[in-house]
């Protein structure tokens, strides 16, 4: 499993201290550093570029508002990833509550926002994307965070507020379904 913890960044700690001291301009350093990853996480869960950008913006503002509670010396990444994941999961919950969103959920996401994907993904990635999108919501979220964003179990547990055991369980169930759906690409037998 590839871990994506950012390298130690002495500049980051200084910036966080400056922001805590009232230097709002310094916050841009953190926004720039984590923006792409935060939007990618949001997009993976919401599958809509506009919603993902809005959510990323909200996540950074929320992080700024509670920067005093952020413990110095810790990397900023896991914190902002947790915030954006929780916001995205809230949006998914909200979507589920409304009938019109349930209808749109039934449409494969790859078709819903295919334009966002087409420029980047090859055919193999496209097949994987469709297979992941066919999973139930939490299996899909965990699979996407693990397979696409390449967070490990403990990182996903911290981001979602679930236990590592629950993450492993979601991933295990999702894996079995992915194995079946992608049998023609990866072989049907279990390894």
């Amino acid at each position: 499993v590839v871990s994506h913890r950012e390298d130690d960044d002495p500049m980051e700690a200084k910036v966080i201290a400056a922001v805590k001291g009232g230097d709002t301009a310094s916050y841009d350093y953190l926004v720039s550093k984590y923006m792409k990853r935060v939007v990618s996480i949001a997009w993976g869960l919401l599958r809509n570029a506009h919603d993902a950008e809005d959510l990323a913006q909200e996540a950074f503002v929320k992080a700024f508002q509670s920067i005093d509670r952020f413990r110095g010396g810790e990397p900023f990444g896991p914190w902002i990833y947790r915030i954006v994941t929780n916001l995205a999961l809230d949006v998914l919950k909200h979507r589920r509550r409304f009938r019109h969103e349930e209808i749109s959920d039934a449409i494969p996401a790859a078709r819903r926002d295919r334009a966002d994907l087409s420029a980047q993904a090859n055919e193999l990635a496209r097949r994987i994307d469709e297979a992941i999108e066919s999973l139930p919501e939490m299996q899909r979220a965990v699979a996407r965070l693990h397979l696409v964003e390449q967070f490990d179990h403990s990182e996903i547990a911290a981001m979602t507020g679930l236990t590592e055991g629950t993450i492993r369980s979601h991933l295990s169930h999702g894996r079995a379904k992915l194995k079946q759906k992608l049998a023609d690409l990866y072989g049907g037998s279990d390894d």
Partner: protein
Amino acid sequence: MTERDDFLERLQRDARPLRYELDDVAVTRIRARVAARVQEEPSGVAAMLARWLRPAAASFVALVLATTLGIRWIQQSPEPASVDALLTSNSSVEVTIDGDTYTLAE
């Protein structure tokens, strides 16, 4: 699922292009929006003070309001007649003790 899972590892490798890559225009746009929102917020120390002072100010206002209303209520209540007032009044005063009524007149 084994500790080292070849299937998931291959999926991870092949799913890498599925990450959403923001273009530079979008990055600039979101950075600008965040910067604008952040500048509207009170800064770190100011925000911390505001968080402490807001409940204190609310308590103070509630206390002042309660005190003002209390004083006003006391001021508006009719004062009980004093003994001197009773004695100087022209009317007689009736006092009841053990069921017997006595009338005090000037």
